[in-house]
């Protein structure tokens, strides 16, 4: 165990995987030589450690980067490629959705694609809509792709290691706003299983599901709610696909209420799936309406006075919980 940042934890996972298995390589724009001289950056120092054979800086060619991963994984390698910012996944989406996600199925199970895509997500750094646009719902809607989103230092390592050694394509989302967050990290190889949510805070009155940065937004809502006598159970979802329905349904059956929080646009966001699934499968346990907290249906603006309107805050979570509690 040692104190590490979230960025260090990703770095540690990459390094551990590359030490363990020569079929693991990393590729992407600036994963080797980077404009950032910052040890909190996920690929910091890996080029020095593993050399140019295994740490591949690429041209600015997202389709080719994804194609590299699909083709190389089909040959038995375990590529870990990076898409620099989430909105650029559009450029890789044919390769990921029509190929990584489908070719195993179309092959009748003959081929497999053990690839990992790391993608940087997040909003709140004033870069606007072409750098900030969380599209996890796109990936989750695409059959054949798994997607996970760590919120803790431990899971940053554990989920990435699981993803790399998973036999299927996994998209690992990294909230850039968490890179500098510190936490305890086991030094050894350890895995957070894909498909397992975590009850971050147990509670009785209302289930709050969040992932990534939004988990901390949810956390910040707890105190004002406790002051009002409301006890929330917070679930750190971690894995969007596979989805831990058991954990979610168990919690909602207990609390009778659901609030979902994410930083993506609310409309057609991943929260819609969670809310719909619960309203479908636990309807009779619900004591109040399911509530979704997410961004309004606008692109991410640059001015921070506007960006704040985009990013859901703890007060939005509080309001949603109160509403479903009919308070």
């Amino acid at each position, binding site marked *: 165990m040692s104190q590490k940042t979230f960025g260090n934890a990703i770095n540690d996972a990459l390094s551990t995987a590359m030490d363990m298995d020569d079929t693991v*390589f990393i590729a992407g724009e600036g994963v080797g030589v980077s404009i950032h001289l910052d040890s909190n950056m996920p690929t910091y120092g890996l080029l020095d450690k593993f050399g140019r*054979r295994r740490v*591949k800086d*690429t*041209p600015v*060619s997202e*389709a*080719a980067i*994804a*194609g*590299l*991963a*699909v*083709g*190389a*994984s*089909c*040959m*038995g*390698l375990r*590529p870990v490629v990076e898409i620099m910012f989430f909105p650029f996944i559009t450029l890789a989406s*044919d*390769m990921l959705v*029509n*190929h990584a996600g*489908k*070719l*195993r*199925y*179309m*092959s*009748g*199970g*003959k*081929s*497999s694609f*053990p690839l990992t895509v790391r993608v940087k997500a997040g909003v709140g750094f004033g870069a606007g809509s072409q750098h900030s646009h969380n599209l996890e719902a796109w990936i989750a809607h695409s*059959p*054949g792709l*798994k997607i996970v989103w760590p919120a803790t230092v431990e899971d940053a390592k554990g989920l990435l290691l699981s993803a790399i050694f*998973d*036999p*299927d394509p996994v998209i690992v989302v990294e909230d850039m706003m968490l890179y500098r967050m510190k936490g305890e990290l086991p030094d050894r190889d350890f895995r957070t299983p*894909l*498909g397992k949510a975590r009850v971050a805070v147990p509670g009785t009155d209302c289930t709050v599901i969040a992932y990534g940065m939004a988990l901390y937004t949810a956390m910040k809502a707890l105190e004002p709610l406790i002051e009002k006598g409301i006890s929330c159970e917070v679930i750190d979802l971690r894995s969007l*696909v*596979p*989805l831990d*329905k058991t954990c979610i349904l168990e919690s909602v059956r207990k609390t009778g209420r659901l609030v979902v929080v994410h930083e993506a646009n609310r409309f057609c966001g991943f929260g819609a799936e969670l809310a719909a699934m619960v309203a479908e499968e636990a309807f009779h346990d619900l004591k109040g309406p399911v509530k979704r907290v997410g961004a309004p249906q606008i692109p991410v603006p640059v001015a921070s006075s506007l960006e704040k309107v985009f990013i859901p805050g703890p007060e939005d979570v509080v309001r949603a919980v109160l509403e479903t509690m009919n308070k």
Partner: protein
Amino acid sequence: MKEKQITPDFQVSLFTRMVLIRKFEEKIVALCRESYQLPGMQILANGQEAVATGVVSALEPEDIIVSNHRSHGHLLARGADLNSLMAEIMAKADGVNCGKAGTLHLSMPEINALMTSTVVGAGPPLAVGAAFAQQYQALNGVTVVFFGDGAAAEGSVHEAMNLSGIWKLPILFVCENNGWAGAQRPEEHSAVRQIHKRAQGYDMPGQSVDGNDVEAVYHLSLELLEYCRSGKGPAFMETLTYRMRGHGEQDHQHYVNPEELEAWALKCPIIRYRRALLNAGILDKAQIQSIEQDAEARVAAAVAFGDAGPYPESDTALTDVFVQAFNA
């Protein structure tokens, strides 16, 4: 290693492969005419047999091919099992891909026909990955990717050519210029007539060849494959040929000038090669007939095999999405 000097035996094998491809696809035409239940779109490569045969015959066993929507010839040249290929085209459970792929997404890793994508232009970036794996693991293989003149307009092809040029990946880009992309002529989909001229923009050799001359294709393939295999990086080959049956079996070619079609019919790679082998005394008419009959018999057997097999059980629709399955 392949011989540069072509022996009569090898010539016969080239001819035999082309005939097999032609007979196989002619049977598909017949099945479509009989309104047999072939699912999806049947997109055939009649007239382009010399490309598939010439290129694939130049490959070593460890080489990889990545194919596109017009794939039957590539796979047959690579030695695909006829029965399970035909069964797949019929979408039967015994098909190479369990009926999930049909004609358009065939993948036969057992013969190093690694992947087929029907997304136009997707092959080259996929090939980048395969060739990277070969380079990374020092496998000594080359990846060959087949794509059309139309596909050359896709951005993915540019990205793949650029990346493989930088990393010196062992890829042979084979652009089958068959004069059409759907109903569009090259002048409507390419700013230049000679697509292989683009190769120099990626620091790779680019050459064109008469795609209806199987030996010419073979020789150029050997030369360029050797270049790739030696670590020098990728190469580009444009094969000038013609799409004889329209884009697919639903296409009536109403927009095609019949004289152009007739002119190309005279340049048919199989007729040409048959004549050459006859003239050179390498095959006589009887031998040719027996090659043709043999191919027909194999194809007929494949159809019988496909016919006899069941369609996939409906519950298999839910399998093979993931290696590590879970409940959604």
